[in-house]
């Protein structure tokens, strides 16, 4: 496992919010806080979204993933702009898992957010999928991973549930995306639900 710390730049309109998040991340292993407008390029931006429709206080550097910390009401408006969304009532360890996952190039969506979006299935918030071959080519292990993904679990939570390493789960996800013809975690979740692998079936 890569032990290089994940560098995080915290973007929040309020000093207390920034310092509280910095103190929380300092208490968790594997993170280093960097200034958002300093010289060092962060591995991920943590954007503290205070209200629905909020715009960031600075321009995020293109190509650097953004993880939004938000209330569920603000989430739909953020989907197109961020790599992941952590809801405010998640435990700290889920924030840590989300930051690591997004820093590695994947997406992250809180389970409650996934459920809320699935209830709105077919709305503009859920991307339309291109035609795809279905689940015939998926192995049993990959199917287990896909079902856990559809329940909104992070890669770490999937790994813990299936007693696999996070690296192995990431490998299964990459294979799944290729087999299913999807380009993102969100598309894979929607496809899994359409094939009956939604949260109600796990």
């Amino acid at each position, binding site marked *: 496992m890569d032990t290089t710390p994940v560098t995080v730049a915290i973007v929040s309109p309020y000093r207390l919010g920034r310092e509280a998040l910095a103190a929380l991340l300092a208490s968790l292993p*594997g993170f280093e806080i960097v200034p958002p407008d300093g010289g060092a390029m962060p591995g991920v931006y943590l954007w503290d979204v205070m209200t629905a429709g909020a715009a960031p206080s600075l321009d995020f550097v293109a190509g650097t993933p953004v993880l939004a910390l938000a209330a569920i009401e603000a989430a739909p408006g953020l989907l197109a702009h961020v790599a992941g969304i952590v809801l405010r009532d998640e435990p700290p360890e889920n924030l*840590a898992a989300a930051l*690591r996952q997004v820093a590695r190039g994947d997406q992250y969506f809180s389970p409650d957010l996934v459920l809320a979006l699935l209830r709105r299935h077919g709305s503009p918030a859920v991307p339309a999928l291109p035609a795809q071959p279905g689940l015939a080519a998926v192995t049993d292990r990959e199917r287990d991973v896909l079902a856990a993904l559809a329940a909104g679990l992070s*890669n770490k939570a999937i790994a813990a549930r299936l*007693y696999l*390493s*996070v*690296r192995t789960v990431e490998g299964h996800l990459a294979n799944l995306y290729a087999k299913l013809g999807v380009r993102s975690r969100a598309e894979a979740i929607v496809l899994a639900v359409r094939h009956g692998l939604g949260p109600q079936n796990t």
Partner: protein
Amino acid sequence: MEDSTVTRMAILGTIAELHRESLAYDVACLRAIVTQLAPDLLCAEITRDAWEHGDLDAAALEVREALAPVVAGTDVVLLPVAPTPQRFADFTPRAGWRHDLGQSFASSLRWGMRRASRPEAINGPVFGAYCHLVCMLTEWTWPGEYRAAWEAQNQGLAGNILAAVRRDPGRRVLVTAQCQRLHRLVPFLRAQADVNIVDYREL
């Protein structure tokens, strides 16, 4: 190129309640070791049932106070590999000369752990030989059925470790087990062709 079917494995001996004493190898030290090593998979002495029900009260101190907190805050995945909850001390008869002699040996072992104190010493060859000798003498005091049960439990533990790593081969695996098991566990795991045992500092 490293063979992805061979699992790189280190075995870290633990010292149960002595982790709470003022030793270099205390709970904080154990947490730091596991955090720094950041294994892909961490095999721990807790039953699957207890782990899945979040029943840490019944788990060993090192699992409850060191390993579980590290796992919660990192991408390390814990594999519960204990076949039953019993530990070495649970196999000592409760009364009689066997009990008294067993207690003497247990005191000797604790003395050795306190003298070694540091994790690299406790997991080193000198303390390893001392621990092996004291454990053999202790087991000699047990009735035959106790020795058989202890042997069966260690075989179950080793089997669970192998089954877990063979589900996900080629990863970096750290096994934590009480020191009293190591002289049985390490030779068995070392004999497996798909497992490469390394010092924990080289994981």
